[in-house]
């Protein structure tokens, strides 16, 4: 039964991965940008949360919308200034700039907060409370909650992109930037909105991570970025549900690996990632070639 529990755990973790990944997927789909600083942004959100709570003493759950809002604004501003300048100068520059940003953020956080990990103190009982199915399957409430939140966010994002004015514009600009301009859309503004959304979703994920376990400056690149990217690639670009699938597969692979040997956890995930990258780089849900 350990196996079943592990797989279920992996499934639920996959939701968190998908939450990390959907912002990356959005940025890549709309702007063709691989944001190497994406993982670090989640950590930044976590630390903003720490700061907000320290200053205002509000309960953790209340701080989440505040952090999301702050991050969304940060996303818009960063996109309109730095990222836009980088994108207009080409893919190479964009990679270098986002990489530079990642290093700056990580080391900056380390400088101010030390390398130690930090939690967002939700209270142990809340985190570890669990329920059982049957006699042997245990599921932690919080993990389930995070999974549900992830699904809800993805659903919301899907609806937004399909039916709202700016959602349409985001899709239009992603399809054909010039034609969108001819219809009156300032693509810089649309990109900014997309970035704001991406930053907002990654903020939720970062806060969740901080609540489930802990965050530390190096986590952004150590795990989050690569896991997020792996989820996108495995699931297939261009599909939010694919990202969820990718995250779940990744989570399950890691859980299986961990069952075999605790130190195989990350390796198992990367192995699946590499397999997909070599044999089906367009991902599992995508139809065409990369």
């Amino acid at each position, binding site marked *: 039964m350990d196996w079943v529990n592990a797989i279920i755990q992996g499934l639920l973790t996959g939701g968190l991965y998908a939450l990390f990944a959907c912002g990356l997927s959005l940025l*890549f789909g709309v702007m*063709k*940008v*691989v944001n*190497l600083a994406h993982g670090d942004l989640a950590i930044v959100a976590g630390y903003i949360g720490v700061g907000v709570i320290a200053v205002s003493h509000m309960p953790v759950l209340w701080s989440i919308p505040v952090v999301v809002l702050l991050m969304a604004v940060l996303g818009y501003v960063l996109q309109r200034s*730095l990222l836009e*300048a*980088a994108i207009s*100068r080409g*893919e*190479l*520059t964009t*990679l*270098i*700039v986002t*990489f*530079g*940003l990642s*290093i*700056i953020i990580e*080391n*900056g956080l*380390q*400088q101010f907060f030390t*390398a130690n990990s930090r939690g967002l103190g939700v209270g142990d009982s809340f985190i570890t409370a669990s329920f059982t199915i049957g006699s042997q399957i245990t599921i932690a409430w919080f993990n389930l909650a995070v999974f549900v939140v992830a699904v809800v966010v993805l659903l919301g994002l899907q609806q937004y992109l399909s039916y709202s004015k700016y959602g349409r514009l985001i899709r239009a600009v992603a399809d054909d930037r010039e034609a969108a301009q001819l219809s009156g859309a300032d693509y810089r503004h649309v990109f900014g909105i997309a970035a704001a959304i991406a930053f907002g979703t990654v903020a939720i994920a970062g806060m969740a991570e901080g609540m489930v376990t802990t965050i530390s400056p*190096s986590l952004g*690149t*150590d795990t989050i*970025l*690569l896991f997020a*990217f*792996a989820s996108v*690639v495995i699931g297939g670009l261009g599909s939010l549900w694919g990202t969820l699938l990718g995250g779940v597969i990744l989570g399950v692979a890691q859980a299986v690996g961990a069952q075999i040997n605790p*130190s195989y956890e*990350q*390796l198992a995930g*990367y*192995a699946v*990632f*590499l397999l997909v*990258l*070599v044999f089906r*780089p367009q991902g599992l849900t995508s139809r065409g070639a*990369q």
Partner: protein
Amino acid sequence: MSVEESADTRSAESALKVTRSRRNVAWSGIGAVIVVGALFAFPYYEGSGTLGIMIQGLIILTLASMWNLLAGYAGLVSVGQQAFFGLGAYFVLIPAMHGLTPWAGLFIATIGAAVCALPLWWLVARLRLGYFAIATWVLASVVMLVIEQISSIGGGTGEPLPGLVGYDPALLTAYTYWAALSVAVLAIGGVYFLLRSRVGLMLTAIRDDETAARSSGVRVGLARLLVFVVAAAGCGAAGGVLAIQQLQVVPGTSGGVFSVQWTAEMAFAVIIGGLGTIEGPIVGTVVYMVLQQTLQSHNVWYLIVLGIVAVGIAIFARRGLWGTVDERFGIRLFPVGYHLWAPGERRGGLGRLGRGRGRAAQAG
């Protein structure tokens, strides 16, 4: 002296002349020999402290030259070179644990890293820019995780380097310095001659227009593979030098040989110095060392400042410090392009006069 009489088809005025650079390369060559010679003589004048700093700089210089080769000439932005750097260190460690002196181990590090590059290339060869970057990052993480499993070579905590016990410390530093210098000189020299060769021409063609190059018969995949392997070899050698300098090999992401910080340092040095020029990494490394020494006591500030400067240059002065100088004055210490002499143009002209017509033909 003058080449290609047959190139003169239209005008009957004068034949077209094509050479490697506007200036006499012989002078650059002599200059280089003098500089290298002076550098080799350092241990006779400088103490271990300064030598230690220079060793660090030479390691970064080697790494930067390799990263520049990858990103600046082959369009491969690798965020995983630390894999080969670390492998090189281990390729020195493991033979040393079985009795082979680390100095010889350096050769193994170079070749071993190059060999490891082959299967890794197969995994990432077909990936485009952004995917390639992340994939190399993943590969580096995988390499690290795999090595950390092997407890016989230290597992996750690292292993001291045997084989150098009993050396006089000052002498050891000097030997390490010479090793580092040799590696750096060979690395830069290797890159220079590679780019002057047919492969260099192929790379320029690929950089300009990949499709056109392919249809002209250029083996794009092969050229990139070659570059990837050479870069791996260079990084491996540098890793070997680090192992010798630190007398231990520690994996791990913070400060260890597999840390992505190494890629950050080499990438930033190249960007600041000038991507796509051989002189760039040299300039960039100097800037890096200056920053590091000045901000030494402030922990990781130097990396933050380095990052900010690199990002700033990437956006505002894309060609980097050397690239900007090169653009204005046309100075190339390591000429790898060709210069087409306009009729009547004189050799050695500096500034606007010489720049005009010949400039357009100077590639690379």
